């Protein structure tokens, strides 16, 4: 009865594992289809061009006005919505894993409000604006880092307690939002252009924004992917993780930086889309399991589908509302939709968790 147990091939690759993989792949595929549907809906939504004309433009024809609307306005807008949503979804998963806190999300850890404050302040000071998107990203990054840093300081020794960290996060977020309001009041001339940051909007996003957003998002998405294994381990608890060989302090710091960068990129382009980063992780973990190597791509897809779909829905809603109210132009910001839908879903999650305990 001595010597190691024999290593059989069946032991190495049990049958259950293949079933799990098949299920994952099927879910990715379904989400991929949903992504295409959301992108398609984004292209079709809107008033100026009818769906049939959109198809014509996409197949290479169409009149110049239709071409301009579809290729210069709708396409970049839809793409920006997808990538921003994906970034927020990734940021949420990274944050929840790093802080081991299901109540964490960029919105409630000071990251999003900090990024908004940074962007608004820079715009108010005339350092940045819609015409200088790179400066906005830089300002949003600084603001996001400052927001996260502020939470770190305020939470102090209570960082380990999810509920208390969330309470501190709400406090910090409230203070940062208040500061944003102050900036807006002091520099009211900028109000019109920056108010979109507060709710989140994809209105008027063009190729310049896309060109800025996607490389940034791609780089940080890769960084998040590289952190997948350490973050999965970190969720098992700091002591267990460091006993298994992880430098927990380093991993957590890298994860926070990555989450801030992803959030700041999204916020600087589409503003503070409420609840996406808080909610998508719950869906991602539920659909793709606790291993971040599976959950991260899932979260990116989910975030993209949620924001892309919400954007298309917001545009359709705007059209209906404009007709009903008989106003010429009305636009429902996508952030208003994600916030409402997200709050409702979060309530469901909270209730379900409550039932389990």
């Amino acid at each position: 009865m001595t010597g190691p147990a024999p290593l059989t091939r069946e032991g190495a690759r049990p049958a259950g594992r293949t079933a799990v993989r098949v299920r994952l792949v099927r879910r990715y595929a379904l989400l991929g289809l949903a992504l295409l549907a959301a992108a398609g809906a984004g292209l079709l939504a809107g008033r100026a061009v009818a769906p049939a004309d959109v198809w014509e433009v996409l197949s290479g024809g169409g009149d110049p006005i239709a071409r301009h609307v579809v290729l210069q306005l709708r396409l970049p807008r839809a793409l920006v919505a997808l990538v921003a949503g994906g970034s927020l979804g990734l940021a949420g998963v990274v944050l929840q894993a790093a802080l081991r806190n299901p109540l964490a999300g960029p919105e409630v850890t000071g990251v999003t409000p900090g990024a908004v404050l940074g962007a608004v302040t820079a715009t108010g000071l005339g350092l940045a604006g819609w015409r200088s998107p790179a400066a906005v990203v830089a300002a949003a990054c600084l603001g996001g880092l400052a927001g996260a840093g502020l939470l770190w300081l305020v939470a102090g020794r209570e960082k380990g307690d999810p509920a208390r960290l969330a309470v501190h996060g709400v406090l910090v977020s409230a203070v940062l939002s208040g500061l944003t309001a102050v900036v807006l009041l002091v520099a009211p001339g900028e109000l019109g252009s920056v108010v979109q940051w507060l709710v989140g909007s994809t209105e008027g996003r063009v190729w310049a924004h896309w060109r800025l957003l996607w490389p940034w998002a791609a780089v940080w998405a890769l960084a998040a992917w590289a952190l997948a294994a350490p973050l999965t381990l970190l969720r098992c608890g700091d002591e267990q993780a460091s006993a298994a060989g992880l430098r927990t302090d380093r991993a957590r710091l890298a994860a926070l930086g990555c989450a801030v960068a992803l959030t700041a990129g999204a916020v600087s382009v589409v503003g503070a889309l409420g609840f996406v980063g808080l909610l998508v992780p719950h869906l991602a973990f539920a659909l793709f399991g606790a291993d971040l190597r599976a959950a991260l791509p899932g979260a990116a897809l989910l975030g993209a589908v949620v924001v892309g779909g919400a954007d298309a829905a917001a545009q359709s809603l705007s059209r209906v509302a404009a007709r009903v109210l008989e106003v010429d132009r009305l636009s429902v910001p996508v952030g208003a939709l994600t916030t409402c839908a997200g709050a409702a879903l979060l309530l469901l999650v909270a209730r379900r968790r409550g039932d389990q305990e």
Partner: protein
Amino acid sequence: MPREFGGAGPAGEMLRVAGVGFGYPGRQVLDGVELSVRAGELVALVGLNGCGKSTLLRLCAGLLRPTSGQVLLGGDDLARLSRRAAARRVALLHQSAPAVPGMTVRQLVRQGRYAARGPLGMLRDGDDAVCARALADVGVAGWADRPVDALSGGERQRVRLAMALAQDTRVLLLDEPTTYLDLRHQLEVMRTVVRLREERGLTVLMVLHDLGHAARFADRIVALRDGRVAADGPPGRVVTPGLLAGVFGVAGRVGLDPEGGWPVCYPDHPLPFETVVERDLQNENHIH
């Protein structure tokens, strides 16, 4: 003579704690601790709450750095190994850990392979085999796809033991692995550890609260008191009324198991603290 990587040091010594002190400002936890564990030995660490047992275990895993002295793992100074390198040579099972919602048994056990992986965290082929063997070793191979948070306390502890085994180290440190478990599950865990020690030739250092388990299953018992080693030797020599009084502050008797011959404790009542003096230990001839 060249030594095998992760192998034992001189004279089969796997783990050596040499004059280790550890403390925080204002509180010295350990002071001049000497301890040596041979390859393949099963050593139980006993003592009152707060005597420094768990701290000593963390020092042996390299999770804490001693403020004085050094911990040698197979002859190498643990302080010189990176976190990852240390985790390839010594595994530590903590008393408890948060359960990750939805994480399956297989996923948790695979976390034990973290240190063995490449920088990008890709699992290698051999990793699957090591994990499967770890699951089989603790008798949970059939549950690989069950979520850990749906398991009972005893089942969860075995799965966590499998995660530590998946690190595939020669040295295994266990911090009160039987706490929170009922009698049956305590014995299951203890028997599993004993069997693994036999089958894999593991070197085991475990903190135990149950002196009965220590006396029954350990090759050697090391008792700590106030951050110092108070007794060190085989159960038959160490487990005495003097140990009960001197280390645990308890009056009681010690008998022998009629079948196996190992010592059995009959603790009776706690002693007033001032009567617990060095003399109780010094009078017995088993002192370190």
